[in-house]
């Protein structure tokens, strides 16, 4: 042997001596039973459900099983279909658990070469079990799985399913006590191979052993660019591996478990099954931080974790809009008849969302001018849009007859809009009129960072002077908006008023069979302002949908909702509202592109009564 070979042999010898790095002792290489240690067996999985057919592995701590002379007995109600001895250490039993087999732990009896060994409580029959389909997924894949239980009692909000490390359960929906579905995202670096899946109902855990296979191939994609700025329109590219990009490919964005709608995909161009590019708009108020990207094509889903990061965009002071309000809100105390009053004013300088808050797909389909479902009807002419807010019947017209209206909710799922960025205008702003000055102090919401201006202490009616036009005076911030006075933009209603009759307190009741007449001191709303009144908080007799009777009455001090109108409402505890309202003129900060800001003001009164 030459010197080099001798060196290699020494290396080998050293490696053999290192635990875990080279050779180790062969399993049970000796022949002396005392040296071998006590013989023990492991049954896996250690449990099965009633009615379940399953494969059970029997592992011996040392060579014990004998070919052709190994039998196993799981007791009454569990039929052993076959036993296969793989080698001295391993045997495999195929079993069928009867649907009526006794539940609980039971002994397993091994018979090897005629000698019995009892494995005490080595196997448990449980009443509940489940299976999933599909039972496999690729690394990097996001997929839907259906879960079918036997004797399970799954509950929405209580039951959850787990797939182990590196498989995230994105969503889990219990459809019934025995059927559920889940969306799972297999991480690109998840360990391939079989793994257990288990459900949890509080402390009640049911395991499906080797229930899910992570395939040894990855479905993956890369995303470019890695960084985007708030307010930016960005072109992106996706390069996939084993993907099937097509015209059906969609892209969604997530921050952890939450879908984010502050980045909008404007266009996608598919080049081939593994390459696409597109364009997206990042909201100027998009939340900062990383975004996961989910690319879906039919049932195929690829989740790219932390695919890109949203970075702060530059704030353009020429893009600042203004939200300003000055109102009085009054409520009648049902117990005492006292008036609870609050006078409010708030001013916010903000950068409007660009793009705007997205509509739900359903709502968009009812206002896009397109026959989306190809039934020959468009938007509100399509009965599918009957319940959409965009197709709600119009309310009362000024000084017209009363109207009984159905109140609609917005269509589709609610969308989370980003919170617009706000801008400082100094420590104070003032509402200034010849009659008085109202000071609003800068506040910063510690949770959201929202900058808003509000009174330092509660305002009173001494601060709300009717029939005024207030200037908005910005103190100015050297790092943000400069000092500026915008003249005559915030009106107040022409005059105060009060409800004279009825006295809406002390559980006041009204019979629908009788007209409802109310009187007030005129609010002098004509011609610049307007008065509105309604009875709401109940449902319509016609369809049990939320509804009300409403009117813009002549402001002459008396108006009536007729019995025939009231009888269209279901009896209930209802609210009566009356308020005067005035709009200001459009305005904007002098350097801003937004010159159509609009102020408003009202004195609002509400009380409750029983409509019988």
């Amino acid at each position, binding site marked *: 042997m030459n010197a080099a070979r001798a060196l290699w042999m020494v290396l080998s010898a050293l490696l053999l001596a290192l635990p875990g790095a*080279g050779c180790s002792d*062969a399993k049970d290489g000796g022949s002396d039973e005392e040296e071998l240690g006590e013989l023990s067996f492991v049954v896996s999985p250690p449990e099965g459900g009633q009615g379940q057919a399953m494969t059970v592995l029997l592992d011996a701590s040392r060579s014990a099983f004998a070919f052709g002379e190994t039998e196993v007995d799981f007791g009454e109600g569990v039929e052993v279909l076959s036993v296969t001895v793989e080698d001295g250490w391993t045997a495999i039993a195929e079993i069928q658990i009867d649907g009526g087999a006794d539940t609980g732990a039971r002994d397993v009896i091994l018979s090897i070469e005629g000698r019995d060994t009892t494995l005490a409580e080595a196997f448990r029959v449980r009443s509940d079990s489940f299976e999933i389909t599909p039972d496999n997924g690729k690394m990097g894949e996001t997929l839907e799985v259906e879960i079918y239980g036997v004797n399970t009692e799954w509950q929405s909000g209580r039951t959850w399913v787990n797939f182990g490390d590196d498989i995230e359960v994105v969503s889990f929906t219990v459809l019934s006590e025995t059927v559920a579905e889940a969306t799972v995202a297999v991480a690109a670096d998840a360990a391939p191979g079989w793994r257990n899946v288990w459900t949890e109902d509080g402390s009640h855990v049911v395991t499906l052993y080797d229930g899910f296979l992570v395939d040894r191939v990855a479905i993956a994609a*890369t995303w470019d660019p890695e960084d985007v700025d708030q307010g930016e329109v960005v072109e992106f590219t996706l390069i996939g591996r084993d993907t099937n990009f097509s015209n059906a490919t969609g892209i969604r964005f997530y921050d952890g478990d939450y879908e984010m709608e502050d980045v909008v995909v404007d266009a996608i161009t598919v080049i081939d099954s593994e390459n696409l590019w597109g364009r997206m708009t990042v909201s100027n108020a998009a939340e900062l931080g990383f975004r996961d990207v989910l690319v879906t094509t039919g049932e*195929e889903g690829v989740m790219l974790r932390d695919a890109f990061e949203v970075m702060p965009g530059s704030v353009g002071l020429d893009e600042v809009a203004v939200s300003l309000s000055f109102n009085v809100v009054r409520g009648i105390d049902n117990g005492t008849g006292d008036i609870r009053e609050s006078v409010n004013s708030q001013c916010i300088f903000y950068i409007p969302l660009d793009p705007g808050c997205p509509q739900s797909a359903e709502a968009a389909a009812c206002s896009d001018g397109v026959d989306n479902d190809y039934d020959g009807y468009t938007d509100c002419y399509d009965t599918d849009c009957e319940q959409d807010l965009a197709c709600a019947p119009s309310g009362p017209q000024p000084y017209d007859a009363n109207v009984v209206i159905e109140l609609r909710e917005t269509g589709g799922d609610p969308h989370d809009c980003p919170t617009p960025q706000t801008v400082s205008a100094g420590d104070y702003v003032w509402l200034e009129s010849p009659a008085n000055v109202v000071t609003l102090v800068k506040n910063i919401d510690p949770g959201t960072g929202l900058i808003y201006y509000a009174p330092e202490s509660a305002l009173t009616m001494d601060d709300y002077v009717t029939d005024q036009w207030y200037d908005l005076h910005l103190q100015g911030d050297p790092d943000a908006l400069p000092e500026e006075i915008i003249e005559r933009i915030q009106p107040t209603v022409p005059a105060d008023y009060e409800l004279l009759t009825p006295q809406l307190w002390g559980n006041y009741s009204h019979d629908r069979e009788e007209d409802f007449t109310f009187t007030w001191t005129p609010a002098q709303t004509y011609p610049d302002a307007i008065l509105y009144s309604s009875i709401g908080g109940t449902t319509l007799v016609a369809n049990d949908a939320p509804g009300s009777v409403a009117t813009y009455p002549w402001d002459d001090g008396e108006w009536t909702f007729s019995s025939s109108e009231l009888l269209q409402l279901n009896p209930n505890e209802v609210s009566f509202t009356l308020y005067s309202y005035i709009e200001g003129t459009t305005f904007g900060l002098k350097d801003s592109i937004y010159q159509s800001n609009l102020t408003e003001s009202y004195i609002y009164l509400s009380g409750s009564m029983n409509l019988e």
Partner: protein
Amino acid sequence: MTPLLFTLALGCTPDQNFAERSIEMIAVAYGDFDAVELNLNRLEVPHQLYEGFISGPAYDEGPEDLDLISLEVEYLFTGETESEGRVLFLNDVVFVNSGTRGFGEYVYNGLDRDDGIVTDGVAIDNVREYVEDGGVLVVSDWAYELVEAAWPGQIEFFGDDTALDEAQAGSVGRYTARAGSDAVRDAVGDEVSVSYDFSYWTVIEAVASDVDVHLSADVLFRVSDSEGEGTLPDAPLLVSFEVGNGLVIYSTFHWNAQSAALADPLLTALVEGLPVAGAAEDTTEDTGE
């Protein structure tokens, strides 16, 4: 510790004709999916380990401390020593585990390329020359591109053989395999149960006439994502062929996924002269065979 020396008389079976030589040095390339070193440990066969993980062991009982493995698989295939020349040629048997890096288009869990060895002309030339000179090369599953690159005409793998990773299509599970050679029949019998512990194992469609098929079975494979699974009848699972004075053994399965009763006799039958300490015989006795 005194190095063990064994005499290997390759070609003991009637259908083989190798020159007698001794097995002194055995190299094993670590891989993510197979761990033939565990079989060798059980058989008490000394071997030198080379770190070749793509991501890390996907099986149980992986090495506890990779830092102890100072030699890397690239060094095994292309390295040289000043005094003795090419490292590969210092070994009598080289095991390349499934999941050894350098033999795929991409890493299996991402988009990074993983063709470092299979596209290295020096490495492939070394391997070809090593076997011709009498070396024994034992390759499993996903390392098949090494065999394809060095001897492209010997094995017809599933799919386009000119494209990397195309043959990875086998379905996970157990298959009943038929013995196709006397050596294997004598070692394990006419039929054995072969376990495929990971999906997308390498499928062989056919072999050249001078390739011995030791095990074959009707196997399930993925036709495509849309078409699902199909059955390939009588697909070779374990094959070998001679090259010059050497031998190439290729298994579509993982050695460490098989029972000791199957893997140990197969290894000792095919790699004749493997310096085994006798564990396999114990197993046979214990199980009554």
